[in-house]
């Protein structure tokens, strides 16, 4: 009997859950014109329409010949006008937007402000944002594309843009002439001679160092005009390591796996004269990723770990986060997002130095998150309007202040706390302007970046340089071939 009662209990539970499930099933594909009454512009429009309806109804009463007919006409007119008012309040077309910053409250404040300002600036569109955790954002976009569920406005990491444009996820932007004048090149996403995305900030990498450490060891402080040469940089590392004061002379950031590797380390390769993909044809990595310059880079890279100058791939992310600030690493290759904590730790002693010149000019990575318009959007014009609206310097400055990243124009930089002339991070703006080189703007980059990361990790772990680079070239070329050159011929 007890068991029977349990069985009935389970059955009842099942039925209840099924009912709950059925009730929860209403949030699937939203109708094209989702209600926009909650948004300010629509709300503002509704009362005006209501008053028109009331006036029309009053008119109908006075003009109608008979009392009953007049009453009926008035009711009908009132109903019609009320419907019109509702329709009109829903006239503001909702524009969906996906954003990568879930969990970042400071960033959310700025992006929400931009959306609110845009929504208030006109009554044709209402932007509605859905934010995602950054670490799963790209997968959500690709899944959304497969399911035919992409939003109108997408934000994306710069180097991924060509792949998404090539895949047909994005529509080119239609920017008014002069919009991008004076823009940092890294913040502009170009593919196939068209602009598909534009960012409100750019990330820049510098060599974090302490003036006192360099001066104590008679190491020249490099400048943008005269960066360290390869020999100077190597000698500096040897000197710093020999002091015995540091666990490692140089922390490149091996613990930060993923996009950090191609973003932060491919500039070294480029400065040696190599690259991830041949930028003349975008059809092969042959000769650039395994040519003599690339091999020279690979051997230098491997020597950093063999000579014990840098922590290897087993570096703990905690050490990456605290090693420089704790004084265990003498130099650190790091981004402007980490600059403020370093400044707080070392104050005036803190230096942000330009990338060394390994023979082919100093280079740092470029391109951060940018806005674009979905190719599937039924309201591309509105989505485009939003992107154009968001590109105002004041918003770029606001993002810079909360994220610590570089604003995109001189005008925006002047509005910021850190990047204004004389500001503590001004050097990053100049670094972006003078040294930045975007990662290869090709759809193949998505796959090539992973291959490059593996090759660098293997080389750091002692793998044969030539074999590793040749294998990487083969893999990248195979991917390009499998995709018919990604549109390049």
């Amino acid at each position: 009997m007890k068991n029977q009662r349990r069985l009935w209990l389970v059955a009842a539970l099942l039925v209840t859950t099924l009912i709950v499930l059925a009730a929860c099933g209403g949030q699937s594909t939203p109708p094209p014109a989702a209600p926009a009454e909650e948004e300010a512009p629509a709300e503002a429009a509704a009362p005006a329409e209501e008053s028109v309806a009331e006036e029309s109804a009053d008119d109908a009463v006075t003009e109608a010949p008979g009392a009953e007919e007049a009453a009926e006409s008035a009711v009908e007119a009132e109903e019609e006008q009320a419907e019109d008012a509702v329709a009109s309040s829903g006239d503001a077309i909702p524009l969906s937007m996906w954003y990568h910053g879930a969990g970042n409250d400071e960033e959310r404040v700025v992006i929400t402000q931009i959306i609110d300002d845009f929504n208030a600036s006109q009554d044709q569109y209402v932007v509605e944002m859905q934010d995602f955790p950054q670490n799963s954002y790209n997968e959500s976009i690709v899944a959304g594309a497969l399911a035919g569920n992409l939003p109108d406005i997408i934000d994306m990491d710069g180097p991924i843009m060509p792949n998404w444009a090539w895949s047909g996820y994005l529509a080119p932007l239609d920017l008014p002439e002069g919009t991008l004048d004076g823009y940092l090149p890294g913040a502009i996403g170009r593919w196939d001679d068209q602009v598909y995305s534009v960012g409100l900030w750019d990330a820049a990498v510098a060599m974090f160092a302490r003036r006192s450490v360099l001066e104590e060891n008679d190491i020249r402080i490099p400048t943008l005009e005269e960066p360290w040469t390869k020999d100077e940089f190597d000698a500096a590392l040897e000197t710093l390591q020999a002091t015995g004061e540091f666990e490692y002379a140089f922390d490149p950031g091996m613990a930060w796996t993923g996009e950090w590797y191609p973003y932060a380390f491919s500039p070294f390769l480029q400065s040696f004269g190599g690259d991830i993909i041949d930028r003349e044809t975008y059809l092969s990595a042959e000769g650039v990723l395994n040519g003599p310059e690339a091999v020279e880079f690979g051997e230098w890279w491997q020597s950093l770990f063999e000579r014990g100058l840098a922590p290897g791939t087993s570096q703990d992310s905690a050490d990456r986060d605290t090693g420089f600030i704790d004084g265990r690493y003498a130099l650190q290759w790091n981004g402007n997002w980490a600059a403020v904590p370093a400044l707080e730790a070392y104050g005036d002693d803190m230096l942000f130095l330009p990338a060394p010149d390994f023979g082919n000019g100093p280079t740092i990575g470029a391109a951060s998150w940018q806005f674009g318009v979905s190719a599937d959007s039924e309201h591309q014009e509105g989505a485009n309007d939003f992107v154009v609206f968001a590109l105002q310097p004041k918003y770029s400055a606001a993002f810079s202040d909360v994220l610590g990243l570089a604003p995109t124009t001189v005008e925006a930089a002047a509005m910021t706390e850190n990047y204004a002339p004389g500001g503590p991070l001004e050097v990053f703006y100049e670094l972006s302007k003078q040294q930045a080189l975007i990662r290869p703007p090709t759809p193949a980059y998505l796959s090539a970046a992973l291959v490059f990361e593996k090759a660098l990790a293997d080389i750091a772990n002692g793998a044969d340089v030539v074999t590793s680079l040749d294998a990487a070239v083969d893999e990248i070329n195979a991917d390009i071939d499998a995709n018919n050159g990604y549109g390049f011929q």
Partner: protein
Amino acid sequence: MTQKSKVRLATTSRYTLMILLAAIFALPLLFMVISSFKPGLQILQDSSSLRAFLPVGDLSMQNYFDAFDRAPVARFIFNSILVTTVTLALGLFFCSLAAFALACLRWKGQGIVLTIIIATFIVPFETIAVPLLMIVSRLPTIGAEGFSYGWLNTYHVQIIPFIVDAFTIFLFVQFFKSLPYDLIEAARIDGASWFQIYARIIVPVSGPVFATAAILKGLVMWNQYLWPIMVVQSEQYRPVMVGLGYFFQLNTAWGEIMAYLSVITIPILVLFLSLQRVFVESIASSGIKG
């Protein structure tokens, strides 16, 4: 060495080994809970010493307050509990029914069907994720807004594809096959229907396998990550593992991560501990010991 000393040595060795094994499993949990009360920088500084496992330094509940401020943690936990519970309830019912048919009934082709089900073991979920996404994004649904297409951004898209799975069916089949067939025959002679046999004979003596399946399936459902990021764009339906991403920003909030992990570990621990008791009781009261 006396007999007493030998016994004492053996006992000491056994307990030392058991304590070491327990420590291997318990220390990460201890680290997580202790760290959840420490500031982020202190967690990193303590991580290379024994202090990582000790409640020392600047301890507070701040990480918990900050974690609940940063993300709708309660919503994520509610979503995961709902999805896990409903999938478990439906899954245990349907999987055990399927296994009953495969293990206890006699019908043509049951061997082939079982083989096909087991063969699906070798197909990883990642292989079918994309086709499944395209199917569920086009399936009809009825909700508050009426009839529409597409299951994206719902609870049931996170539940229905996972109700029945080959491993759970296989688990039940193996257990049901070990039960004495005489029980079923006796029930048939007494006039019981197949469902009555399932409900009144098989289920009451299958507590251990139900508990085991619930624990294994519950863990899988609680840890769902890939599928939710593909089918759920709305924050309203996100489960706990997707919510973890809220804490990985440019500068990772380690303290909040530990607090979040401590909070989301509680429900799964409760599930495990509650089923562990059922598991023991089922063995004790099953009355089938061969």
